[in-house]
C-alpha cells in the first residue's frame, strides 16, 4: 500500500516520518466506494474513472478543479476530527525497564463523513442507504486496506438537507444531501527500534536546549 502523499522535501535523515495514517484511511474509503459503484450496472450510478463516462462522482472533499461541475449524484468523503484516545500510560510501552527500547502507540479515534448529494432527496437517501448497508459486508476489507483498527457499529445516516441549503435559488429541490457518518479507529505505532530514531530524538532535544 503506498500513500499518495509525497513529502515536499526528501527526509534528510534515514528515519522516515510515519505515513499519514489518516490519509491512508481516507483513500481506502474512497477506493472501496469507487469499487462498490464500479460494479453497478449502467444506469444505476455506475462509477467510472473517466469523467465523461461516470454516472456518479466519488471524490474526497474539495476536489481540485474537476473538469465537469454541476453533475450529480456526488459522494464526497470528509474526515472528521481525529483524537488520541489515550489508551496506554504515556502513549507508550516500555518493554524492559532496563532498556530504553520503547514503542509509542495509541489509538486515534476519528470519523469519515460521506456526503451524498443528488437532485432528489430520496435519491440521495437511496445511495446513502446502499453504502450504509454495505459497510458491515465490507468492513474487514476496508480495515485491511486502510490499516484501520476498528470500524464502529454506530454508523449514522443523517436527515436530508433543507431545500436550497446547498445551492440557493431554485424552486425545485435540485441539490439535496444525506450524510453517512462512520466512526473508526486507527492504531498508530512507532517503535524506537527503527533506524536512527534515537538520532532524531537527540537532535530535536538538543535543538530545544535539553539533554
Amino acid at each position: 500500500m503506498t500513500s499518495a502523499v509525497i513529502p515536499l522535501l526528501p527526509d534528510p535523515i534515514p528515519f522516515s516520518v510515519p505515513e499519514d495514517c489518516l490519509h491512508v484511511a481516507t483513500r481506502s474509503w474512497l477506493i472501496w466506494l469507487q469499487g462498490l459503484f464500479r460494479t453497478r450496472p449502467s444506469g444505476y450510478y455506475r462509477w467510472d474513472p473517466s469523467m465523461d463516462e461516470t454516472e456518479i462522482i466519488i471524490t474526497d472533499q474539495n476536489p481540485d478543479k474537476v473538469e465537469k461541475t454541476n453533475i450529480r449524484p456526488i459522494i464526497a468523503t470528509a474526515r472528521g476530527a481525529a483524537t488520541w484516545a489515550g489508551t496506554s500510560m504515556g502513549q507508550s510501552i516500555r518493554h524492559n525497564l532496563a532498556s530504553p527500547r520503547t514503542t509509542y502507540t495509541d489509538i486515534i479515534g476519528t470519523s469519515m463523513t460521506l456526503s451524498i448529494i443528488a437532485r432528489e432527496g430520496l435519491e440521495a437517501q437511496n445511495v446513502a442507504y446502499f453504502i450504509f448497508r454495505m459497510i458491515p459486508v465490507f468492513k474487514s476489507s476496508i480495515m485491511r486496506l486502510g490499516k484501520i483498527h476498528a470500524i464502529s457499529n454506530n454508523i449514522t445516516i443523517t436527515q436530508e438537507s433543507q431545500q436550497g441549503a446547498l445551492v440557493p435559488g431554485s424552486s425545485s429541490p435540485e441539490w439535496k444531501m444525506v450524510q453517512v457518518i462512520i466512526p473508526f479507529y486507527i492504531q498508530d505505532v512507532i517503535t524506537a527500534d527503527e533506524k536512527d530514531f534515537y538520532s532524531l530524538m537527540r537532535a530535536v532535544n538538543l535543538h530545544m536546549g535539553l539533554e
Partner: protein
Amino acid sequence: MLKVTNIRIRSFDLGYLDIYWDISPSFEDVLDFEFVVEKSDNEFGPYFDLTVPMINQYHVRDTTVRGQFNYYNKIYYRVRVQRRGDSEQEVWPKVGGAHLAALPDLAALEMARLNNLRLKEFSGRKIWIFPRKQSGQRCGVCWDQVSQRRTRSGCPTCHDTSWVGGYHAPVQTYGMIISPNEQTIHANFGDVQNENTTLLVGNYPEISEGDLIVEAENIRWRVASALSKIKKARALVRQQVALHRIPASDIEYRIPLNLAEDELKNLIASPERNYTNPQTLESAKLSNTLDNVFGAVPVEAEQSLL
C-alpha cells in the same frame, strides 16, 4: 357559425366557478348549435370537455374545481360551438382560455402594449417559455404515491416534474434576462456554478413558478419562487420573475425545442433593428424592421396604393 363573446368566470364560493358567455347577434338559428365548455389547468391546453353538448344555454357551473386553495393555480375555460349533425365547430376564445381574472382597462392595455413593444423592438430577446404541468397523469416511473415524492432524477417520462410529459408546448415571446454574475460556489463536495437572475417579460403568457425558460443560446432557466406581477386594477401589465440557471447535466436540457429548419438557421433573437444603422435607408433589413414596428403592408395592398 355562432360567435361566442364576453366569456366571464365568476364565483364567490371556493366550491364552484360559474362560466357565462354571450353570442354575437346572428341570423342563425341558435337551436341548430351546441355549446360544449372545455376546461384545462393550462392556458394552452390540453382542454377536455367539461360538459355534454348543450343547446341554447349560456351559463355553466363547474363544481369539479380543484386547486382553488392554491393562490396561484388557474383554471381556464373555453367554449366550443358545433353545428348539430355536422362536423363544423369553432372554439372561443380562439387563443388561450378565460379564467377568473379582472378585465384590463384601457390604461392597462396601453401600458402592457407599450411594454411589449419595448421588449420586442428594443430591449428584449426571443425566448421560449415551457409552462410546467401542474396536473394530469402522475409519472409511473419516479413518483411514489405513498410518500408523494419523486424517488429519482433524470426521469425521461416526466422530466423531473412528476407529471407525465412535464411541460406544455412552448410559447415564444420576448423578454429581457438580466445578465447574472458568474458565480462558483466552492462547496465541500466540489465546485458548483450557480447563476440566479431576473427576467422582465410582458403580460403574456402568464408565468408560474417552475416554468422552463429557454434562450436562443440554449441557456435554460427555471422560474424561481419569487414572481413579481405588476398589475393595474388587478389586470396583469408586466412580469418580473427570478430565474435560476438549470445545471446542464439535468434532464431539462433534453427537452426538445423544435424549430423549423429555416427558423433555426435564420434565428435572430434580438430585434433586427439593433443590428442596422437607421440612416441606411436602402437597407432591406431596415424595411423589415419597420414592418415589424408598423405592420407589414401586403404587396397587393401596396400596389393598389400606388
